[in-house]
């Protein structure tokens, strides 16, 4: 037994439409975070002022921005983890500890951004280089050499994997194609109406070799949020609770520099995963689906390997043959993920996992979905993993 097991659960989820419209409003993310938060609180059957903990995503609105607008007049707990896209998973664990210890009763985890109509990566790299992963180190030692964006530094790792293990472009493409198949069953996915074949994938332009266009996630406008409380409190709420069975976080070393690591494939998940599985008391075969943070296609293969779903070097073959597609043995990113639903900071991975475990996923519902995992991936490989069950 451990302090988390069975004691914390997600009782509300909410999101806004996910959009890519160049005449979108842009600007600060607060409106999206608030809209998603309101929806999550309503979904839980709570009132805004029941919320007494808020754990915002790093670099977006801060807790008091949300509290003052929502009318949360007794905010008892707030915290932010500086781990980029691993943040939602880290915050879920933090929320579980907060409600388990009595520091707070109902914790809100919001996220969202105008990732398309607001500042896009290609603008941030000009205006505010040290806001990117790696901060001042990247600004001083990567940027002057034209290494200015995630698609470039992660492509290093993909190439190393291809050189060392023979991973092929078609195997990266298998990830993009599988996730597009999932997205085609998701009414909320940006790529709902756009089929993708392996041939089209291979014919698309190269962005940073070996990454082509469809290896890259979809910058988008949108917000998502969820609410965490104890299983005891959840009994009085209307939605079926989704329990946090196991959780862990980790960082590669050194976390702030992706080129000097002794083990270039190491991620935060490399060491974290076993801790989470041990906490949950389950094995890999017990996982019915996986929502894997997917900034780029290869990072899905890499995380599957580092989590131990297959051996290092075997990830390319693992994702081929339909295993991660709808109806496969391990459906991955059943909403389409950041590649084909929308890049909503990985918040959308949690919303999707909860829908699956509630049995509310419509035509993309995974049959007999009892246990799902959600990973987070931030900066240069910070990791979080949450094992969720109904």
């Amino acid at each position, binding site marked *: 037994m451990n302090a988390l097991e069975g004691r914390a659960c997600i009782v509300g989820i909410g999101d806004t439409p996910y959009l890519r419209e160049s005449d979108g409003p842009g600007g600060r993310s607060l409106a999206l975070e608030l809209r998603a938060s309101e929806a999550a609180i309503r979904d839980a059957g709570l009132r805004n002022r029941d919320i007494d903990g808020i754990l915002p995503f790093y670099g977006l609105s801060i807790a008091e921005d949300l509290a003052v607008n929502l009318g949360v007049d007794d905010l008892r707990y707030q915290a932010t983890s500086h781990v980029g896209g691993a943040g939602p998973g880290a915050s879920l664990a933090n929320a579980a500890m907060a409600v388990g210890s009595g520091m707070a009763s109902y914790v809100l985890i919001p996220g969202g951004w105008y990732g398309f109509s607001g500042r896009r*990566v290609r603008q941030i790299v000009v205006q505010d280089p040290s806001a990117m992963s790696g901060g001042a180190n990247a600004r001083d030692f990567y*940027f*002057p050499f*034209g290494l200015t964006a995630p698609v470039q530094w992660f492509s290093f790792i993909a190439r190393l994997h291809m*050189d060392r293990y023979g991973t092929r472009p078609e195997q990266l493409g298998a990830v993009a194609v599988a996730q597009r198949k999932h997205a085609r069953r998701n009414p909320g996915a940006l790529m709902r109406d756009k089929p993708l074949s392996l041939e089209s994938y291979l014919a698309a332009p190269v962005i*940073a*070799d070996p990454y082509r266009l469809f290896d890259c996630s979809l910058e988008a406008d949108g917000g998502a949020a969820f609410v965490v409380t104890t299983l005891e409190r959840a009994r009085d709420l209307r939605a079926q609770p989704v329990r946090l069975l196991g959780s862990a976080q980790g960082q590669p070393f050194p976390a702030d520099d992706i080129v*000097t690591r002794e083990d270039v494939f190491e991620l935060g998940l490399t060491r974290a995963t076993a801790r989470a599985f041990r906490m949950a008391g389950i094995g890999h075969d017990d996982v019915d689906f996986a929502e894997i943070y997917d900034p780029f296609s290869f990072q899905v293969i890499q995380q599957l390997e580092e989590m131990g779903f297959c051996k290092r070097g075997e990830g390319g073959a693992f994702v081929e043959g339909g295993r991660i597609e709808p109806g496969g043995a391990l459906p991955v990113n059943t909403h389409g993920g950041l590649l084909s639903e929308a890049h909503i900071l990985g918040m959308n991975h949690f919303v999707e996992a909860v829908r699956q475990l509630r049995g509310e996923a419509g035509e993309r519902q995974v049959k007999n979905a009892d246990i799902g995992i959600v990973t987070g991936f931030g900066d240069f490989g910070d990791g979080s993993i949450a094992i969720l069950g109904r």
Partner: protein
Amino acid sequence: MDPKSAGTEKPLPLMEGTTAAFYGHCRNRELRFQRCTGCGRWRHVPRLCCSHCGSWDWEWARSSGRGKVFTWTVVARPMHPAFAGDAPYAPAIIELEEGVRMVSWVVDCPPEELATGMPVAVIFEDVTDEVTLPRFRRA
């Protein structure tokens, strides 16, 4: 900043602290990295203390400037507008003889001729009056 001219200048290191010291050595045509005087380990990027032995004592030790290509990418569509005229260009990770790795470019080498393990040696390019970047050439 005038939005029209935003991003036309290539990004430069912020010349302060250990960053200024590193690039200052480059200006003098020397590639130097931190070396811990406690345990003798070389390191890059610059740090305040040694993550291996904990020592706060270090020196700027001169590298041979020789190394090999560890890996690279070919940027076809730059994400920073100042590099538009360079595309396709190939940021590479160079592993120096001393064991440290750094990001740079291999000049005079078309991206399609890059190869893992290719021997390279440092050269220096003054990109502004203040900043000199270390680059590499096939050795």
